[in-house]
């Protein structure tokens, strides 16, 4: 039972200054907390965070904000985190806001070899700014281009040695999208299971997307 299971030090070594970290988790649930520890331990700075939100102050992904590791945030909402709000207001963090559904699709595109998608969401709002409008059969759509990261940090419920993953409940939301959308994908799982312990029909993220799983 080794496969893609890796000790913590190998995972800590993945994180470098200036990387874009694409992360699972939503309003503090489903966050890869042990991998956030690894990022902190790596000492990496000047990071870009790509994910839905930045959690609560000094909670979950918000710990990277609190520790001053983040130069840029791309997400749909930072309102829960007064530290992020203040750092953005003071020009210490650059913020890009994207409607949540468009963010999900853009990360999905980044992980699926697609260049972008056309949506109606955000037409007539500031979400249009800097984006192309495309006509298809006389209808106008907004082009939301693909997004991806250098390292993806993912929280799963179960992981097998090939990196096949399942999720539980609403902890699924951004995690399987994030798992596809980076050069390197690292996973922490509540349960590490043996090969063939996950039913093939039940797997949400096939192991082909996963590079390393935090061992215990």
């Amino acid at each position, binding site marked *: 039972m080794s496969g893609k299971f890796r000790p913590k030090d190998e995972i800590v070594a993945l994180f470098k200054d200036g990387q874009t970290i694409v992360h699972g988790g*939503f*309003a503090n649930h*489903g966050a890869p907390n042990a991998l956030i520890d690894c990022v902190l331990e790596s000492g990496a700075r000047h990071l870009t965070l790509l994910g839905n939100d930045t959690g609560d102050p000094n909670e979950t992904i918000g710990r990277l904000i609190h520790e001053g590791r983040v130069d840029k945030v791309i997400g749909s909402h930072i309102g829960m985190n007064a530290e992020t709000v203040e750092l953005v207001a003071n020009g210490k963090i650059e913020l890009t806001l994207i409607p*949540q*559904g468009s963010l999900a699709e853009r990360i999905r595109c980044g992980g699926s070899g697609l260049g972008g998608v056309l949506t109606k969401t955000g037409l007539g709002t500031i979400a249009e700014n800097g984006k192309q409008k495309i006509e298809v059969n006389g209808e106008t759509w907004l082009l939301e281009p693909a997004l991806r990261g250098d390292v993806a940090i993912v929280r799963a419920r179960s992981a097998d040695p090939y990196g096949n993953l399942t*999720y539980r*409940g609403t902890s699924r*939301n951004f995690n399987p999208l994030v798992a596809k959308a980076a050069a390197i994908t690292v996973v922490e799982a509540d349960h590490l299971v043996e090969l063939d312990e996950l039913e093939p029909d039940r797997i949400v993220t096939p192991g082909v997307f996963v590079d390393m799983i935090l061992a215990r």
Partner: protein
Amino acid sequence: MDIRHRMAKRAAAYFSAGDIVNLGIGVPSLCNNYAAPGVMFHTENGLIGVGPLAEGLMRVESFCNANGMRFVPVPGSAVFDSADSFGIVRSGRLAATVLGGLQVSKGGDLANWARPGKMVGMGGAMDLVNGARKVIVTMELTAKGQPKILNECAYPLTGKACVDHIVTEQCVIDVTGDGLVLREILEGLTPDDIRRQIEPELLVAEDLTTLAA
């Protein structure tokens, strides 16, 4: 019944059995107390079947709503990722969404996510107002004496021409092709009382209903 619950109850009257509905924070989140049996609730962070707030051992990280509140899923719930969740939203599969509002224009534009200089994020609101079949805004008619129903919104928009119904503490106003139409009014108020508190012209429905205070 306090005003917030009365507004939530009125908004919930738009739902029917079999509907899938998404509720925003604040007053909208109270609508689930007043929904008809057979209405199911969607949370944009990946589930249809949001049930009551969880207690005891049912309080688990794996069942949180979009505000991070822990809930119990109802029988028949289904889980999905955020891409599929907004696929449901954008493709018109939600019968309704109920949201708070900062400003609504006479044409049904909604501003509810930002004040100028304070933009912390639209979350899923832009997708919801674009996709849900019925967009219901619950809000006070005015804020600090200033009208919130305007000819044009001054705050950043959530969506253009997206609002169907505005449920306030004093009245219910529909956005129609002919303009804003007063549909229901609180006992003791006249249409002119409402007109004084909004900027655009206000038509009155022929079958205007009176709501008991």
